[in-house]
């Protein structure tokens, strides 16, 4: 079980009321997302990509203490 830092961008940060939150006791990234979508149900209606330690990821990966997980929605303004 790891303690990780979650970085939130765009609307996700608005929903959570913070741009970064600490989450304890998570095993892997898919369980972390489940946990976040339970805490902030509005996340479910949003598209976002995930990066772990500044690397874009597509599968669920095991998380280690101190990992930084970024949830990045697309921006479309110009």
């Amino acid at each position, binding site marked *: 079980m790891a303690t990780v830092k979650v*970085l939130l961008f765009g609307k996700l940060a608005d929903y959570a009321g913070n741009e970064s939150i600490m989450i304890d006791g998570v095993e892997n990234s898919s369980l972390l997302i489940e946990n976040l979508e339970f805490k902030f149900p509005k996340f479910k209606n949003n598209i976002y990509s995930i990066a772990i330690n500044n*690397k*874009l990821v*597509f599968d669920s990966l095991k998380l280690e203490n101190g990992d930084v997980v970024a949830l990045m929605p*697309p921006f479309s303004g*110009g």
Partner: protein
Amino acid sequence: MQLENFNRQILLSEIGIDGQLKLFKAKILVIGMGGLGCPVAQSLVAAGIGTIGIVDYDIIEASNLHRQMLYYSDDVGKRKIDVAKKRLQKINSDVRIIAHYLKICTENILQLIDNYDIVIDCTDNFNTKYCINDACYLTNKTLIYGSVSQFSGQIAVFFVNSDDKINYRDIFPKQPSESEICNCNELGVMGTSCQIIGNFQAMEAIKIVLGNESVLNNKLLIYNTMNYNQNVIDLQKNPNSTIFQPQSIKSFLNHNYQSNKNLNRQFEIDINELNNYSLDEIQIIDIRELDEIPIINNDIVKKIPQNILDNDTLNSNDKVKIIVCQSGKRSFEFVKNNYQKTNRKMLSLYGGINELIHYFDGK
């Protein structure tokens, strides 16, 4: 172009006379002359990029002026592309500025980007962003992507001529529908943030022309101009990226980038569908207040503010009433709320007054 005018940047060892000559020779296309496109084009013209194409299909609105600093208050109602070209040319009359008054689509983009070395995406909607991305992907054209939201921006460089052809669809494979996203109109955007993010895009373009290695190649920079937090994300090939992406020119030409428009068929019509009606079959009614700009002055459009538009007018003849407001939202609400009380022959024009101007341009 006069080399001595660029003396201050030629002094930089990364540029020098050789670098400046490269900038003179470069041909860069800026798509979208809004919050990002204005600073991008201004900086590239000032830096002495030899040929700059600018693309836009919008008119200047008062709500643009806080972030689109090429335009002044007395330009409201004019075409962005005309004003932008005039102002940019004043910065440097030797730069070749080519104005493309175009709405980007699959039919015109391939020919357009063929004339340029680098494409810079400064657009404000996913339909166009995905169309640009896929066109550059298929033709191996270098693309500098940029977007803003609130105080933050995203910038990436896709050198799609590299083997793995990493592109925007590796980050977000499927084009979001309009209900899944918000743009500046709803979320808001800070003008100074657009200037910063736009200049990051211009900086990437200059570095690419110079052959500098420190570009955001296959990286996504997320930059928060409020607290200066930044993250540089290493991108990698997404196994799902090609599922939704046209893999040939033929499938690209048949791909519908507008399909995610959330049109309510009962109450709304878009400009393509409007073109199926002859002018005899429709009555266009502008329900905005009389002082709202741009003002459309022709005999075809009746101007009746919504608070005085009554059911008798709406039922007066058999023509389909096309209700128009500034953005398409007020007119949608109006049609929805009054539909049952009328002969049900009315539709709200999707996209509002801008779309109506394009409709008349096409006539």
